[in-house]
């Protein structure tokens, strides 16, 4: 992709070819997600769905949002945010999983009342 145009400030201009290509890829991946959801893949169900979603998200971020051609710092900012999200979700989940039996036991007892 050497024929990139540049705007007045030196900013990167996304070629139409790339825009349409990314769009087509996103549509195809959406169809793939819906199609794959018809099959019960068991435990990897979620992994497949999230994998496809992540690929789509990455495409949007890199091309529609210009991250690939943008300042590296912006990528750092977003990845940093995702790191904190991961931290938040994983610690809450880890804790909940550990005390789930105590909730289950109480639920059973309340039902028996």
């Amino acid at each position, binding site marked *: 992709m050497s024929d990139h145009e540049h705007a007045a400030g030196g900013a990167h201009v996304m070629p139409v070819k790339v825009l349409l290509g990314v769009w087509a890829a996103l549509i195809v991946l959406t169809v793939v997600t819906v199609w794959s959801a018809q099959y019960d893949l068991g435990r990897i169900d979620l992994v497949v769905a999230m994998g496809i979603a992540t690929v789509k998200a990455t495409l949007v971020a890199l091309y529609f949002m210009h991250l690939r051609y943008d300042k590296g710092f912006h990528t750092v900012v977003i990845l940093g945010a995702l790191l904190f999200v991961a931290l938040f979700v994983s610690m809450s989940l*880890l804790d909940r999983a550990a005390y789930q039996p105590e909730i289950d036991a109480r639920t059973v007892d309340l039902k028996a009342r």
Partner: protein
Amino acid sequence: MSTTQTSVAVGAEVEPDYLACSKGWKSWLFTLDHKRIGVMYLIAISASFFLGGLFALGIRLELFHPGEDFVDADGYNQLFTLHGAVMVFLFIIPGIPAALGNFVLPLMLGAKDVAFPRMNLASFWLWMFGAVFFVAVLASGGLDTGWTFYTPYSVEAQTAVIAAATGAFILGFSSIFTGINFIVTIHKMRPVGMTWFRMPLFLWGMYATAIIQVLATPVLGITLLLLVFERLTGAGIFDPNNGGDPILYQHFFWFYSHPAVYIMILPAMAIVSELVSVFSRKPIFGYKMIAYSSVAIALLGFLVWGHHMFTSGESKVAAAIFSALTFSVSIPSAIKVFNWLATMYKGSISLATPMLYALAFIFLFLIGGLTGLFLGTLSTDVHLHDTYFVVAHFHYVMVGGTLFAFLGGLHYWWPKMFGRMYSEKGAAISCLVAFAGFNIAFFPMFPLGAKGMPRRYWYYLEQDFISYHQLATVGTVLLGFGLLGIVIVLLRSLKSGEKAPANPWGGATMEWDAASPPIHHNFHHTPPVHDPYRFDDLRRDPATGNYSRTDAAEPVSSH
């Protein structure tokens, strides 16, 4: 506040300062000038502090005697809830960044304004809008959930929980706007020559604070939104009566509210770093360590929220992880204290009022920080959690730390903000009274808590605890007198204080290159960048009390 033009302003033209350049309430309420926004914030948060202080006084007067004196149990529950909510959301969180930070940050960068002046004004208006909700809470049945809004109590409480949560939600956005503004300003508005490691430490502190505001505050927003949703529909996310999980609520809440503690204390540490250096006339010791430790505290501060939940039913694994990480935050904090101490070594220490506050901060923050060790230690926390020990600990950090540093910063920048010097003697006496009152009020709470007095109790076992409570009440009144003294001294200076020179303390950061008070655009020409902690080229003129640079002073770069 008449037009003040000191003899030291660089430009020859006579240009009115930012206070006098335009008149009328509209020129204030719709101003885009960071200095005016800072001053409006200062007035607004001071009013909130006064309100929160009245609630505190109510709590302490009720507890002077064990039985019912002038409020009943419900009234008492409202008092401590509103005291906490007003102090946290309306005063401490915006306190240093939005009031002092707004005023000082662009000046320290030699900039004309923050990066997004409109957003800055929007932040102030959001604050006002959020405050309106709190007023509505007061007018419509109050709030009795504790400032933490723990579920399921907050789901079934009969008080104005939704209004309060909405208010806090809006205040959160006010805080986010300030944070975004400061990050971009520090990234993009630094003058040529001011590299990251030539920034004043106050800016490092503000930067670290802004990171927390941006990363943590949105989680508070969604937590409160889901809480309101839970109350309205019984969605079953946080309320166990509908299949929800109250411990999950606590994870959500503390993911914001623990880092929020660092929103409170990091700016305080940043102010103290400035004060200790300027009033010792010594370059700050271990500049890089202090800068790094600010960012380290900000990031590590996100990993420790679970230490509020050691006895909540949190799992053992989580408790162990959070306890270990909690201790890791203590190290950068300790490093800062040692660095301040080393800065004073062989210095030329002036005990002007701002420095008194800095020393008081070190004293009080040390107690606050060290008592944190008892609470980070798992087995002792099981005993101390939710007792007065915790109450004393966080008041030593938030009041002893943040409030005293805020007051130190206020006294330090007051001449810059309003162009007037206050009475040194009156200010110093008020400081000492407040310091003594604070210690008398809160130190007794440590043994009181360890003996087993739970917090948020309206009633207590008379024979055991009465003397501690009475001491605390006496201290609170004394603290109140100290604070009143501060207000009188500062307000009097506006009327009858001497005109302040541009640089009354001998500071080397760029805000002292501006006039006192600064002109609307801060500087006529962007001043050259100097080492922010080099004092040997500053000389005091005994006639004016102003410090100015000698010819030997070579800027790091000119612009």
